[in-house]
Each structure stands twice: as C-alpha cells, then as structure tokens.
C-alpha cells in the first residue's frame, strides 16, 4: 500500500505539466530533480485520496468475507459436507457376512455346510502380466493358459476368472501380485455325503441361495442376514474404534429326519438293483412308522451337488416326490382294507376268481394265472386282479374314493418340499364300473412313491396316519385314524402272507425279522397307450410284530427279462430292510436262520401268480 507520504514525494517530482500544483503542495526538491522527473509524464499525476481509501475498504471487506466463510465452514452452520469428507478418509462401513446354516442328519452328521471362499476376478485392461505369471495363475485357477488369455482379452471392464476358489488358493494368487487381478469374499457350500443324499438336501447356487430340495424349501431358515459395522481406521489400516454395529444374523442349522447310515443303505441297494436289472431309474424310501419321519430317500440316477457344473435336469429330479406312476398291485390292499372296514368282507370271505377272466362292460380283465376260489386273504397274498376288482365293486364308488383320499391318494403330502405332486385320482362321480375295478388294482390311478409309503404306514401303525416330515421331530405328531385297528392288523397278516412261500414276493424275506409287503408291476403309458415298459415296485414294512419302518422301492423300466416287482424290487427291499433294522437296533422277531429256500424262490420259475396289467382294448 502506498503511503500518502510517498505519494506526496512523487508529487514532488512531478514534471513540468503539473509543476504549479505539485510545487504548491511541496516545495522540496532541487531543480535538477524536477528536470529528471519531468521526463516521465505519468509520475506527475496526482492520485485522488478516495482511491486509497477504497482499496483499504475492499481489503477489509475481503478479510471479513474470509472470516465469515471460515465461520460458515467451521462454526456449525454448514459442517455436514466437510465432516462427511473427513470421515470418508478414516471411517469405513464393513459388511459382516452371515454364514448359511448347516444341514445335518438326525444324528448331527453334516450333510451341507458353508465355508468362506473367494471369487477371483479381473479388470482386463489393468492386467499386466508375463507368460510365466500367467502360467502360474492358470495352474492355480485350474484353467488352461489359452482359455485364461482369451478371458483376459475380453472387451469388458470386469470378468470373473473363477468363483468359489479356496481361500488358500486365492491367497497364493494374491501373492503373485499381478496387477488387475482381484478377489472378493463369498461362500462355498460343501456336501460331504455327495450323491448319496443329493436329492433330499438339494443344492445352492453360486450366490449361496437354495435352488433345490431342502436348501430351497428351508431357504428362509438357512439363509443368514448379513450385518454391517462402521469403524475407524488408522493410517495403517488397523481398526481402532467402532462407531456402530448391526449384528449379522447367521442362518439357523437344520436337522433332517434322514439317518445318513440308512440313507446309504437305501442308496446302495437301489443302485445295485438298478444296475442289475439295467433299469432306467429307481427310487427308494424308508419311513419311521412311529413318527412319520423320512429316514432315507434315495434316487437313481443321482448327481454330485459338489460339482456344480454337472447339474443336469434329469438326474436332479426327486422321483420319490415328483414322479407319479401307475402303482399296479401295490394299490390292492387299500380297496380290500376299505371293504373290510365297511364290513363288506372278512379275511376269510371266499371269492370266486375262476376262470381268471372277467368282463365288465365292454372290457375284460384277467389274472396271470387262474386261481379258483380264494379267501380275501389269499386274494391279497396271491395278488388276484379279479378278486380285488370283485371286492372293490362291492363298495359304492364314493365310499372307495373317500377311503383312497383318507389314505392320502390324490393329495400332495404336506412336506414343505418343492415339487411335491398329488398324483391323479379322478372323482368318484366320473368312475365307470370298469374304472372302479382297475383302480382297485392300481391302474387308471397315479401315485408317487411317497404317497404309497405313507398309505402303507397306516397299515403298519394300526390304522392311524401321521404326517410325513423331512425334518427331525422330537414329539410324536398327532395321528388321524383312517382304519380300525382290527382291519390294519388283518391287513398286516395278509401282507405277511404275500411274502411267504406261495405268495408273490418271497424274495422280500430276510433272516431274523418278519416282513410284510406287496409287489407291484405296472405297464407304463406312453401317448395314451400301454407299452411294454414296466415299473416294478415293492412296498412293505418290518418287523411285522411291531412295525418300525416302511420301505418302498420303485424300479423304472427294468430292461432285463425280469420285470416283476417280486423279482426286481423285492430283493432291494430285503436288502434295505435287513441292513436298516440292524442299524436301527431293532430286536429280531423272526427265525434267525436265512430261509433255506430263499435262493430257489428267487428263481423266476417259482415266482408263482403275479399280476399282469391288461391293456385297454
């Protein structure tokens, strides 16, 4: 700032043009100076005093503005923005991932569990690497180098190289220090039992969300809710303080009703039966009679839920629950039980089945072998179509339908399992007599293996039905009475006769335990026509003196020459029954010696009177 004194001094040196005024204000200075100053006309201008004052004032205003601004920013009028910016430099919000709950069997054996994994990804344009590094990376990621190169050449800003990588592998990749390669946290679900229990447990997708089976049905229970926390980090990146915390909710564990030992028994017996008979598929189910718990549920073909890439449509289908089939003779006991319960027949009522043919309306049904006069007991034991049809025709259609419905046919079991189907049981009003007859021996009606097993559990537990469940239950569930206890006991006796020598499935017998059950062999329908392809089934329970398990086996399209349920499914039943009763430590109630005639009875020639479906004409 120019001081007025200096301005005056200048004025003193003003040149000739303004010399009078300058001279009047200041008389100092020599002549010589004046002459020198007069050389520059600018120096002779006298500035008005208000200019310096204005300048002073402007500067003052600027200082006030600065002060005001400082107050505005720091004094609390507008602090949010800057505080947020400051916080962004030391505070972080971290996500706390929640772990998905475990799935265990009834004894706590882990069937599915999640552990942390890493997703390795890249920003292709940032990647700088040399051939050696690339080779190492490819090896760690289990990719081939060309493939990796192609992915890194993709014109994208983000590309996953591999997901669900083990943490150790991801750390070794990070140690390569390749620019542009990153990893992020995720979870990988492990299924230690693999294919054995794959259909029950199901699987999750790469985001750890349930896609099939229990994983899907109990998604809300198993899935966790991730939490988050706000922390303060120091310059080294260490967390030094918590600001706030939202606790993560880990998924809850789930105990299934499955017993992994029984599951394995069922699975390996089923696999053996499917292999032996070169069948297309098969399914097996073991139920606990007392609690309605599913102890084992096996399917073939199966899949390995650990190998996510190979989850194809056909193998992942849970045939026990989602596939319906015409049951054939396994359906017979229910018409007989209904007739007995309504007092139409007694176990010793005699029924004429000769000559093994019977015409109803314009169709004829028949037995594979003519039997002559049979008691009701023998009708079941020898599996006579005619006998069953005659018994069923004794009943009003509606009564038979009501009974079937009470047994659970035509209704999806309330399992809470995705894809459970109801099967097909047409309303009684639409039945013609021929249909009433064929339905009684399992044709013109479709069921799932689950429904069949549930219906047999009614016979096994003195006429009551309990809801089935795939999760472990601690208290016995409420039961609904379907049959009188006397009828159920009589049915058990008949079904035991069916596996005795002279019955249809002596191959179902096992050493040490009395078993009871019924075979079924039905032709499949394709495009509305019965074809020469069969579904062989066996449903039974053991031990007969106090049933503990219901076991159902279904073999789809056995393609060897043998296709009768008594030869295909019954041996698998025997295998499952023997091993699971031993595993469950059930006391034996039968002769301990292996029945000597068993081997002979397994020959086809002695497998006496088996039913045969009669195709519509």
């Amino acid at each position: 700032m120019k001081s007025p004194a200096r301005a005056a001094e200048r004025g003193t040196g003003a040149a000739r043009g303004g010399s009078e005024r300058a001279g009047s204000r200041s008389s100092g200075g020599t002549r010589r100076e004046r002459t020198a100053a007069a050389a520059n006309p600018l120096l002779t201008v006298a500035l008005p005093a208000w200019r310096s004052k204005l300048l002073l004032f402007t500067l003052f205003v600027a200082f006030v503005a600065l002060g005001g601004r400082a107050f505005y920013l720091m004094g609390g009028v507008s602090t949010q923005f800057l505080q947020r910016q400051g916080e962004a430099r030391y505070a972080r919000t971290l996500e706390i991932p929640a772990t998905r709950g475990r799935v265990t069997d009834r004894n706590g054996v882990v069937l599915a569990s999640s552990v942390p994994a890493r997703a390795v990804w890249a920003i292709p344009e940032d990647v700088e690497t040399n051939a050696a590094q690339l080779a190492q990376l490819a090896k760690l990621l289990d990719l081939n180098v060309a493939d990796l190169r192609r992915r890194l050449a993709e014109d994208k800003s983000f590309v996953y190289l591999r997901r669900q990588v083990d943490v150790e592998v991801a750390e070794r990749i990070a140690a390569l220090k390749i620019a542009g390669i990153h990893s992020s946290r995720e979870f990988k679900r492990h299924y230690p039992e693999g294919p054995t229990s794959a259909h029950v447990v199901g699987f999750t997708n790469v985001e750890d969300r349930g896609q099939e089976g229990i994983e899907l049905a109990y998604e809300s229970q198993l899935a966790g809710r991730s939490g988050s926390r706000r922390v303060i980090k120091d310059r080294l990146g260490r967390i030094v303080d918590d600001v706030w915390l939202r606790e993560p909710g880990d998924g809850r564990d789930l105990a299934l009703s499955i017993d992994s030992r029984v599951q394995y028994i069922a699975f390996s017996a089923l696999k053996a039966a499917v292999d032996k008979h070169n069948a297309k598929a098969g399914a097996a189910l073991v139920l606990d009679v007392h609690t309605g718990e599913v102890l084992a549920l096996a399917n073939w073909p199966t899949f390995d839920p650990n190998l996510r890439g190979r989850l194809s449509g056909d193998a992942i289908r849970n045939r026990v629950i989602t596939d319906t089939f015409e049951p054939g003779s396994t359906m017979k006991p229910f018409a007989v039980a209904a007739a007995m319960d309504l007092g139409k027949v007694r176990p010793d009522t005699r029924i004429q089945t000769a000559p093994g043919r019977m015409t109803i309306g314009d169709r004829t049904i028949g037995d594979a072998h003519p039997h002559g006069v049979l008691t009701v007991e023998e009708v079941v034991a020898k599996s006579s179509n005619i006998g069953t049809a005659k018994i069923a025709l004794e009943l009003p259609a509606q009564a038979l339908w009501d009974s079937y419905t009470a047994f659970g046919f035509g209704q999806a079991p309330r399992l809470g399992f995705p894809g459970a189907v109801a099967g097909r049981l047409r309303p009684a009003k639409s039945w013609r007599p021929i249909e009433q007859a064929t339905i009684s021996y399992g044709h013109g009606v479709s069921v799932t293996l689950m429904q069949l097993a549930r219906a047999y559990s009614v016979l096994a537990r003195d006429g009551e039905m309990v809801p089935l469940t795939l999760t472990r239950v601690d208290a016995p569930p409420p039961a609904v009475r379907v049959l009188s206890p006397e009828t159920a006991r009589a049915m058990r006796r008949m079904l035991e006769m069916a596996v005795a020598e002279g019955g249809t499935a002596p191959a179902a017998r096992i050493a040490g335990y009395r078993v009871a059950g019924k075979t079924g062999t039905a032709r499949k329908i394709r495009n509305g026509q019965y074809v020469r392809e069969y579904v062989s089934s066996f449903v039974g329970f053991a031990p007969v003196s106090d049933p503990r398990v219901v076991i159902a086996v279904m073999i789809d399209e056995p393609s060897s020459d043998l296709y009768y349920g008594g030869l295909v499914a019954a041996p698998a039943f025997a295998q499952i029954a023997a091993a699971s009763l031993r595993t469950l430590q059930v006391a034996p109630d039968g002769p301990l010696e292996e029945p000597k005639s068993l081997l002979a009875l397994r020959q086809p020639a002695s497998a006496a009177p088996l039913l045969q479906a009669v195709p519509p004409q």
Partner: protein
Amino acid sequence: MIRRGLMVVVALLLFASALGLVTAQHRTRSLFVDLERAQQEARQLDVDYERLTIDQARLAQPAAVERAAVKLGFRAVEPGHTVYLNLPEASAAAPLAPGARK
C-alpha cells in the same frame, strides 16, 4: 504470590492430565486393535472348525467306511451269526432294543 504458585500447580496438573488423556486414548486404540485381531482369529478358527467338520463327515461317510471294511475283510452283522441276550424282566417281547430310538 500464593495465587501464582497455585496457577503453576494447576497448569502442571492440566498438562499432566492432557498427556494422560493422550496416553489413555492411545492405549484404548492399541487394545482395540488387539481385540480386533483376536476376534479375527476367533472367526478364522470357526472357519477352520467348519472345514474340519466337513472333512470329518466326508471321511466318515458310510460309503468310505464300507470301502475300508471291505478292504479289511469285515463282514456285516447278520441275525444268523449274532447272539441275542434278553434282559430278564425287559422281556424278549419288547419290540425295540434299548437305545434303538433316540
């Protein structure tokens, strides 16, 4: 004079307190860092435990046990070569062996 002495004492106390505060704050933070590290370790141990449980389940699955049993030449228990003992009063008619149900 006394007043000035008091001032000096208070000033010294204030200074000491300020230093104390700084130290306490620093200790809090370093303890928090330790706590954080310990919690991280706990989480890691949880993960390891989970992984070991999975490994155990995989190694103990019935299929693996059966393979090992076959290799060793074991045979499954069958009623034919099992001796059954009945407890005197719990009667042979008892349908379920003890421990059969959970």
